[in-house]
């Protein structure tokens, strides 16, 4: 080796020796939802309120680990026979079976006929991404219709998976309810085979859900047009307090014998947020198709993360298969749902007591973790600046972040924003 060897800087490499090949990378904007918590954490005010991320909080404003989850964890820790081996690519088999039963009902013919393939994924996000990648590779129609508005991450997930994203009307700002006519019109125009993203319950961010009658009409339209439903079920049990009631929309579609996908998350309803536990189910026409589909889904997963994380799924499996623990879970779940429903009522009452102008009944009509207040970006900015209330700029508030103690502060902030802010 010649120590005097001249190092040539090549024009083609785009970087001289010593320079980074990624020097041109610019800083990405903050995630709009997670950025709210970042801003909240920076605020020194003692009366600040975080109504950004949809993570459940107790009356004391603390995160909650369910008792039944703690018990399950202790069982895991104390079991010295447990090992940390790789799960199969599709994840923990027991977890997958139990998740399918939870979603589709224990007596679902689709499960009994082995027409459902269920794979463990990284919470709702991961289930949506894996499902979308599968569709982009194997479905003849690569367009997905998502509701307007929807969770901010949906569009990115589907685009990166290789699908092209269109929207269908959903929320009606005038009524702060469902734009049912617009929804039906837009889906009627979708080409045959197009994928339709449906929030199984507790629509995020609006909290506006179709009634069962409306779901039936949506189902008929989707089936007659030959569209493919893809359910995002992130709040089963969390919306109404009943696991079965919150799964009605999905089960209605499965009952007609047709195909669909469902992404399930245990982040909220079991409080397993950071453990990233979820499942993707694909309901197929026949068991043979389901088996082939599963083999192809594995090819999506292997180069993404090889196999899913074991801890959270083990906790879920213990709880779902043990009758006492399952019952204990349903009780704790209902308590969370009830507390949120109570917060809705309290906020509504507080605004009425202040004589805040406007109709605020949507607060108690909407369902689930979030309320789409109808406040505009200027009003939201005002509330953040003057009252240290943090929410996403679309006016969405996480009811889980409220407590009886903080409802008055929020009501004051809303009242001020509506009467004073432009």
């Amino acid at each position, binding site marked *: 080796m010649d120590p005097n060897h001249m190092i040539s800087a090549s024009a083609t490499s785009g970087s001289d020796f010593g*320079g980074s*090949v990624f*020097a*041109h990378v610019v800083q990405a904007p903050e995630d709009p939802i997670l950025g709210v918590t970042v801003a909240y954490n920076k605020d020194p005010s003692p009366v600040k309120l975080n109504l950004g991320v949809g993570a459940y909080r107790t009356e004391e404003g603390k995160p909650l680990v369910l008792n039944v*989850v703690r018990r399950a964890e202790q069982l895991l820790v104390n079991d010295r026979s447990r090992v*940390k081996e790789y799960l*199969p690519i599709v994840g923990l088999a027991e977890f997958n079976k139990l998740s399918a039963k939870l979603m589709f009902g224990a007596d679902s013919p689709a499960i009994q006929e082995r027409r459902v393939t269920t794979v463990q994924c990284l919470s709702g996000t991961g289930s949506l991404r894996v499902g979308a990648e599968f569709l982009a590779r194997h479905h003849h129609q690569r367009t997905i219709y998502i509701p307007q508005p929807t969770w901010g991450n949906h569009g990115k997930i589907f685009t990166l998976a290789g699908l092209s994203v269109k929207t269908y009307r959903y929320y009606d700002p005038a009524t702060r309810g469902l734009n049912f006519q617009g929804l039906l019109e837009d889906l009627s125009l979708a080409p045959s085979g197009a994928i339709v993203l449906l929030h199984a319950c507790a629509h995020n961010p609006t909290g506006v859900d179709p009634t069962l009658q409306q779901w039936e009409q949506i189902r008929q339209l989707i089936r007659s047009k030959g569209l493919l439903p893809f359910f995002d079920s992130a709040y089963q049990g969390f919306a109404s307090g009943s696991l079965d009631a919150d799964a009605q929309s999905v089960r209605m579609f499965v009952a007609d014998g047709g195909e669909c996908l469902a992404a399930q998350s245990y982040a909220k309803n079991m409080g397993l947020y950071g453990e990233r536990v979820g499942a993707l189910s694909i309901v197929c026409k026949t068991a043979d198709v389901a088996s*082939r589909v599963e083999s192809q889904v594995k090819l999506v997963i292997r180069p993404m993360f*090889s196999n899913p*994380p074991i801890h959270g799924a083990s906790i879920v499996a213990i709880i779902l298969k043990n009758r006492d623990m399952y019952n204990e879970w349903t009780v704790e779940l209902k308590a969370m749902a009830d507390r949120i429903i109570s917060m809705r009522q309290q906020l509504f009452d507080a605004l009425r007591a202040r004589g805040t102008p406007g109709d605020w009944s949507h607060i108690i009509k909407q369902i689930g973790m979030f309320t789409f207040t109808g406040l505009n970006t200027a009003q939201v900015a005002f509330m953040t600046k003057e009252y240290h209330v943090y929410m996403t700029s679309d006016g969405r508030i996480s009811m889980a972040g409220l407590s009886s103690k903080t409802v008055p502060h929020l009501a004051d902030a809303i009242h001020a924003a509506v009467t004073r802010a432009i």
Partner: protein
Amino acid sequence: MAFRTGISRRMMIRSGFGLRSMSSWWGSVEPAAKDPILGVTEAFLADPSPDKVNVGVGAYRDDNGKPVVLECVREAERRIAGRLNMEYLPMGGSVNMVEETLKLAYGENSEFIKDKRIAAVQALSGTGACRLFADFQKRFRPDSQIYIPVPTWANHHNIWRDAQVPQRTFHYYHPETKGLDFASLMDDVKNAPNGSFFLLHACAHNPTGVDPSEEQWKEISYQFKVKGHFAFFDMAYQGFASGDPERDAKSIKIFLEDGHLIGIAQSYAKNMGLYGQRVGCLSLLCEDEKQAVAVKSQLQQIARPMYSNPPVHGALIVSTILGDPELKKLWLKEVKVMADRIIGMRTALRENLEKLGSPLSWEHITNQIGMFCYSGLTPEQVDRMTNEFHIYMTRNGRISMAGITTGNVTYLANAIHEVTKSA
């Protein structure tokens, strides 16, 4: 109006709004080929023979052939259970875990860490770290390709393919010597266009177990400087190869000293036995702090639509262990035990084969390093190993040393001798 639940299928069909057709959307989906590596374990499990031996998957086994959970891990889990909450981690994962992980790769007192020049995020073990990098490479260097050694871990090809980064190969393994084809490797490095992206195994190359010597690494690093190439290290076996994590990171140290701005995928699957927890880290060394912040923010943009944020449990185990000097000491001891057992099995296997009077040279078994040995067995010989002796390995002749025990090494040596003695 009450709506009856439990709507029957027949009612749906009769209503005329049920099914548009009886055929599936995915009727034409082909069954996918089984994963070559994981398929071996499936076949092993299905085999009823009492003599069966699994030297397929690279997961550590003790001398009784049992999986191991390290004591330091058990202790960490005891401390973690019953903790305050299971909240979402940030998109970039556990800051503590990442900090400790960077120290392992870049050095305990690394100036790069102090100067905050490293963009790093928690990833889903080694696979996830490679995939994040591949997606990042595609997004920000869309005209680049990745040079991958021949052979390599099969999933590397899948990862960069799914990220849509075109692949090239470079010479690595020399079948004749069962060692490194250094001359051809260097030729490929020189002939690649300036500024090419290379995937390098930091230590304990998978599947061959063949690593460059320190001198050879220095030459590779020098040539990379000449050509302005980008080095991406996959380090899945730090500590596991020699028993000394610092020694196993030598290749990286050489590149850092030479001023390269490298990328590293790190995994705790093997060296902490955290396989199914999926804990790893992707890091990119940048010119300065500002660039590191920008790059990290972009890595997060790739993670968000893939899984939002990484799993917390495994990360907590790692940061608990590495953040406690006593636990860290225990970990280093346990890693050395694992590495030493494997080195011991290499010696035993080679000695057994030589004692049997094999006509072939088995030096490579002890020359190679890490979990795997590239035995040199042909696919046909591998099939005989499986069909006649119930010994399971991948058809490229790769043997997972971790699957060998004092109990089965003689049986294994006999089988290898049988299928190769007339070669």
